């Protein structure tokens, strides 16, 4: 979260902002990030910074795998990466590990 806030302040300042009103993150299902922990860290870290009083929103990115056998992409319904059609486990993760600062609302 510290890295996220650092990046946010950097970007906000580069856009000539003096305050961050809201922060939007994109977090992949397989990133290992716990949204509750993010919220907690956000509240602990923002006071005294340009993001003080801002809100945090998180967009979840589902884990998407590529099945070589079926040559198609699928969204894993469970923890496992098995193709819903042929049941082959896939080692090719196409999306779901994101930890991205999507956008900022600034003033």
């Amino acid at each position, binding site marked *: 979260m*510290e890295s996220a806030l650092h990046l946010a302040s950097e970007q906000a300042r580069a*856009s000539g902002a003096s305050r961050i009103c809201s922060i939007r993150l994109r977090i992949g299902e397989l990133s290992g990030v716990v949204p509750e922990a993010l919220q907690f860290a956000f509240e602990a870290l923002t006071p*005294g910074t340009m993001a003080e009083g801002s809100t945090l929103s998180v967009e979840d990115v589902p884990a998407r795998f590529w099945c070589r056998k079926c040559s198609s992409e699928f969204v894993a319904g469970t923890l496992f*990466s098995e193709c819903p059609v042929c049941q082959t486990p896939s080692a090719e993760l196409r999306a779901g590990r994101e930890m991205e*600062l999507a956008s900022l609302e600034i*003033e």
Partner: protein
Amino acid sequence: MCTECGCGLPGDRPPGISGGHTHDHSHPHNHDHEHEGGLSHSHPHTHPHSHGHAHDHPHDHDHPHDHQHDDPGRQESRRTIDVRTAILAKNDRIAERNRGFFQGRGLLAINVASSPGSGKTTFLRETIRTLSPAMKAGVIVGDLATDNDALKLREAGAPVVQVTTGTVCHLEAEMISKALAAMPLGDLRLIIIENVGNLVCPASYDLGENLRVVLLSVTEGEDKPLKYPPMFQSANVVIVSKIDLAGPCSFDRDKALANIRRMSPGAVIFETSAKTGHGMDKWCEFLESQARNITTA
């Protein structure tokens, strides 16, 4: 501070120094805003306006204009910017630099992660002892505190650089970059990075390694891979360690292997015991063949 678990205190890490700027800048800005109070003013405005709707229509028309004047005024200051940047972009950049460094020197780098107490250090000490003399290894070891692991690894005769992470629960690419500067590289062929004992946060931090190795000891139970999907998902190698204890722990080998294969379909699996030496040869041969691929690349 870690993105996942929030470990590490702000300002506790040297790389966070630029945060000092943030504070300097943001204080005056915050004051301005509090003075402005523009936000709280504008909200009351909205309410009277909507009430006014019922009353006089002409005014209604004017009011929206008022709004627009106000709003652009505020919107000028309040606007949304697209950033779309990976939060760990800085770490990833340094990791790429490390990767280039390893490649340039023909080094194989492995990042070894596991839960605390799964036997990483003993496993790595025995790995160093088992490798052929030509396959010289240097170790970077990360721990929150103490250099016990470093001392244990030095017993095997390898150069060891200790990284004490303080309150941070994982290694980051920059720590590796600094540790490499302190490493007598000489004729080393292999860099072993012993990550902090933790299966959560280290999964997110690329260190520039060629192979990510995850250890799972039989004492931890067969379902460990299911509990830590991101780490196992990203593993190139899974080591089932302490298999000499499989019997006493009633370790269900088939179930464990099935779980690993389902969670880490791309990973090579080795079953080892650092105590009896079982499986260590195979694992070390694998490392040597991987190192040969690096030099021929």
